[in-house]
């Protein structure tokens, strides 16, 4: 029963979505795709509670057992509830509730979360530099080719580098764009995309037909 029902649901959902693709929007069959997406959102909404329970349990256990860094876990718990509770309370009670401008949620989002996320994203520049340093070592012919190509592409992608490349005859930026980015790079990317798309379709088919059940821990 624990296997049959999920396989049956996967089969029906998969077939309905495939069939729906071939029918016009506005018809019963054509609109089923949209209907199923709504169901997914509803199911996803219910499972949000699972997430809250999980994060609270993990952090609360760490605080209770005074594990290393337990003080930070208290901060995490405070942050979760300080952001969640005022956002679900009615703004009619106080302008600090709800999610409108000026609310606690808005303030925390604008002045705490956004800058922190932007900071995390910005650190990517340093990570790229360290990864590039390791990847672009000219240890072999292939690595040297990679180094030369990457250097030219990086130069081309910045205004000063493009100006520098234009000092040489032969329109190097055009050649880079046409042969490296539009030629070799595009061909490889498309090869990977075609392979991945076929892999995804094959796996979907295996799931729809119940051949693959590993996503349920079976098989």
């Amino acid at each position, binding site marked *: 029963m624990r296997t049959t029902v999920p396989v049956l649901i996967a089969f029906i959902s998969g077939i309905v979505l*495939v069939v729906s*693709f*071939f*029918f*016009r929007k506005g*018809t019963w*069959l*054509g609109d089923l795709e949209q209907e199923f997406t709504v169901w*997914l959102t509803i199911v*996803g909404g219910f*499972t*949000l*509670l*699972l*997430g*809250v329970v*999980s*994060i609270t*349990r*993990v952090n609360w256990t760490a605080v209770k057992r005074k594990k*290393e*860094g337990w003080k930070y876990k208290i901060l995490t718990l405070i942050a979760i509830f300080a952001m969640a509770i005022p956002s679900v309370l009615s703004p009619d009670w106080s302008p600090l509730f709800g999610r409108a401008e000026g609310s606690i949620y808005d303030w925390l989002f604008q002045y705490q*979360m956004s800058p*922190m*996320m932007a900071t*995390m*994203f910005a650190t*990517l520049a340093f*990570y*790229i530099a*360290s*990864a*590039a340093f*390791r*990847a672009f070592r000219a240890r072999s012919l292939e690595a040297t080719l990679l180094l030369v190509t990457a250097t030219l592409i990086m130069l081309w992608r910045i205004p000063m580098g493009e100006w520098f490349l234009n000092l040489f005859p032969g329109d190097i930026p055009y050649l880079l764009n046409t042969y490296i980015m539009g030629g070799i790079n595009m061909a*490889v*990317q498309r090869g*990977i*995309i*075609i*392979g*991945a798309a*076929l*892999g*995804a*379709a*094959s*796996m*979907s*088919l*295996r*799931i729809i*037909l119940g*051949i*693959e059940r*590993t*996503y*349920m*821990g079976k*098989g």
Partner: protein
Amino acid sequence: MQNLTKQLKTTVLYGIILQKILTSSAFAQTNDSIFRVDRINALILVVVFSTTILLYTRWARQGKPLFLRKIPGLDAVEEAVGRATEMGRPVLFVPGIAELDEIETIAGISILGRVAKITAQYETPLNVPVRYPLVLAAGQEVVEQAYIEAGKKDLYDKDTVRYVAGEQFAFTATVNGYMMRERPATNIYMGAFFAESLLLAETGNAAGSIQIAGTARPEQLPFFIAACDYTLMGEELYAASAYLSKEPVMTGGLKGQDFIKILITICILLGVILVMFGFGKEFISLFQSV
């Protein structure tokens, strides 16, 4: 080979018959037609693809030996978990940061089951941070089942798979912090990754972990290749569950997929030749959809 040619002919014949039926007067495209005749090429592809996969699956079920090329990244999984066991450190598994409706996440969850079985057998701690509650539910189910199958139910901890954050960079910060504090011996990233791919992989590299990554996103692959020891590219991610299970029925699907790849390559070559000689327009229109 003869059998294959016969099956191919049958598949193509079915495709042509289907196309004739659907383009006949009964299904002709009018403004009030409910069927998308403009998507008939996609339908033919679906039929040909499904038939091929099912045929190969059937042959595999009948016991026909099917060759699968080696995927070093997957062969290294057991070795990587073994390393973690020897070092007495945990294994970190990240099933991507996308929702469960992404096929890459499902592929990641499938691989998680295999990895969990190995960690259960070796009694090595496993940590699986997730970004979505639906992935949490699926991950917990898969890991619990793996521990049961390994006969180590008592070792299963419900918080092995845990929800850490819904925001992309909050999730990344949590996982990176975990890597630097706990220094897991093995990090496995399988699923859909975006800008955080390099943040995770570089941190893991700095923490001295052996790293295996897999994603179908071509734009993230260079980052994983630069920072990880093994990388599964594109289709290898979807092949992983079949490859690790070694079940003939599942490997049959992979062979069918290879066959379709050959067909697509032939179509591309044919298209290039036809375009070169000025006959490409009609051929290209066969593959265009609205």
